[in-house]
């Protein structure tokens, strides 16, 4: 992926660029809002990582200008302001996701990969298939190797989100935000327990596990045979 990091703090920016390069991405960098906006207008990036507080041009203004010019590159906003109100403002300005500093790099990586994928055609599909696991979004039915699996509504949505991002890492916070629509810290590892319940339903009686735990990051559903 080709990523543009618009961030005024040198150290944060160079850490992000190095880490992204290690993950095989191409990372470019702008130190202020105006430069960032100019670059984003000219080059085709897969994703923009925009700090909210920027010299010359505020992060939200950069996003607003791009959106007004019909440039739809997915944007992840980074901000030290972490309240729900701030988040709402960021998303209203045209941001696609919002991450509060300080963050874990694994969280950032999972989120930009999910965002970049969002523009892919799979978004609208009605059937998700991972290995022999099939989820039908219209009939709300899940089968593995042709065998029907009964899921609670919430478990269905959890699996749906995981399968939509099949092959990618999905963090606990992403699950909490997207499956439950909660933007706060639940204090206990509630998500882990929900995932392990789901795992017992889809993986327990089968030889190859599909739902994997990614240490220090989150979860990923993938067909390990491939």
């Amino acid at each position: 992926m080709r990523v543009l990091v618009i961030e005024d703090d040198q150290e944060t920016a160079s850490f992000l660029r190095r880490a992204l390069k290690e993950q095989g991405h191409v990372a470019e960098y702008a130190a202020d809002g105006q430069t960032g906006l100019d670059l984003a207008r000219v080059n085709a990036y897969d994703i923009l990582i925009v700090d909210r507080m920027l010299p010359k041009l505020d992060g939200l203004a950069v996003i607003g200008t791009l959106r007004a010019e019909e440039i739809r590159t997915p944007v992840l906003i980074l901000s030290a302001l972490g309240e729900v109100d701030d988040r709402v403002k960021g998303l209203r300005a045209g941001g696609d996701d919002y991450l509060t500093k300080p963050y874990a790099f694994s969280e950032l990586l999972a989120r930009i990969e999910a965002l970049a994928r969002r523009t892919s055609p799979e978004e609208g599909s009605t059937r998700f298939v991972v290995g022999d696991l099939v989820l039908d979004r219209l009939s709300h039915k899940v089968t593995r190797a042709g065998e029907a699996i009964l899921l609670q509504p919430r478990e269905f949505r959890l699996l749906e989100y995981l399968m939509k991002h099949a092959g990618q890492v999905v963090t606990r916070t992403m699950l909490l935000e997207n499956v439950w629509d909660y933007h706060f810290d639940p204090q206990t590892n509630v998500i882990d327990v929900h995932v392990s319940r789901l795992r017992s339903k889809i993986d327990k009686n089968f030889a190859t596990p599909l739902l994997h735990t990614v240490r220090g990051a989150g979860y990923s559903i993938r067909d390990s045979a491939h």
Partner: protein
Amino acid sequence: MTALTKLFRTTTFRLSLTYLALFGAAAVVAIFYIYWNTTVLLTRQLHDTIDAELTGLAEQYTGGGLNRLVRTVADRSRTPGNSLYFVADADGRRVAGNLTSISEELAKSLGPVEFEYRRPAEGGIETRLAFANVFRLPGGYRLIVGRDIEDRRELGRVIRSAMLWGLSVMALFGIGGGYLVSRNLLARIDAVTETARTIMEGDLTGRLPVTGSGDELDRLSQNLNLMLARIEQLMAGLREVSDNIAHDLKTPLNRLRNRVEAALREPYGETAYREALEHTIEEADGLIKTFNALLSIARLEAGAAGDNKERLDVAALVRDVAELYEPVAEERGIMLKAEAVDPVFTRADRQLLGQAIANLIDNAIKYGAPDRAQGVNGERPEVSVTAGAVGPMAEIVVTDRGPGVPTCERERVLGRFVRLEASRSEPGSGLGLSLVAAVARLHGGGLRLEDNHPGLKVVLSLPAEAPPLDDETAKHAAAGPELKPA
């Protein structure tokens, strides 16, 4: 600045002076007006009287000549009164009249004239003022007809002195009154200033004096005192939080530092380094969580959050959050029961209220089981969450069967970083309930802890809202009333 100049500079004193000057001027004008009018009236009466006398005397003269006039004058002179008569011959000698003599000046003058004359009085002779008309008669005779106007002169004197006295007394009372009122007010203002100074110097316990008279200064002082009480409370809170931050954030920071230092000091090799770094990140994450919670509470208490309030069904949110925690409860051997069927509405920020409910359930699961998974009589310990309307409030009640919170501690556990000894074994920041309390306050509600016999009962109450109309009703209402003749 001396005490006196300070006093003279007060608004009250200046106001008194201004009023005094205004009233004084008004009084002078009024008195002068009365005096002037009286004088005019008296003068007119005087002239009329003299004219009448003259007419009478002129008739006598035309009727009987000089002799008759002299006789009439002599007759009239004998009747007591204020009238004065004098008939003089060509040499100025008295022929008739009640004036003993006239001055040379008067003898030569003609027409209306004011003069002084002497007449006998008790214990001597007095000089009095008179007004007269002087006529020349044929043969060098002169007729003087006048009236004593000493009384009028007296009246002028009396009025002048009355004015002088009146104004002096007025000035005395005005300045004195102004002085007293200003001194009184200044004393109160000085007391307020003094208190304000001690408060500025750092003594927040100071309060403005209230006299109990209920006047505007008292009301002002009372309100300022309320403000001071709130400031004192906030400052105390701030101090407590700083102390707590010092303890609750420094301890893990120190632990983190020690661990990193230890890893650096000893040549452990890569696995050990990796382990140390992982621990470091874990510790840092914990710190970030605590820090975030603190920031959230601070923002909530400053009223800087909650712009996203909407009407929502508390019961639905309670079911939703309970569902999130249900697997965790089960894993810990606790039965989590959510009893919230009937919708109850309130205006709230979904995320904030959700977090508050989550914190309450999380607490109940963590601290609400007596001996984990054993429970009373072999039953699973139970945590129940309910939502319902109680009077004008929507109440969310979370109960557990744990050790509860002693009555004396119930107020204290709502504070920041407060953790009861019994709960120290569980991980936690001691910020959960503070956050719930802050959310409740932000939404105009409250949080109270009660006894669940045994266990803890936490009640989060929020002002209830009327439920939204369902589509059918809304459509019906929009159609308007259908009026039909009876």
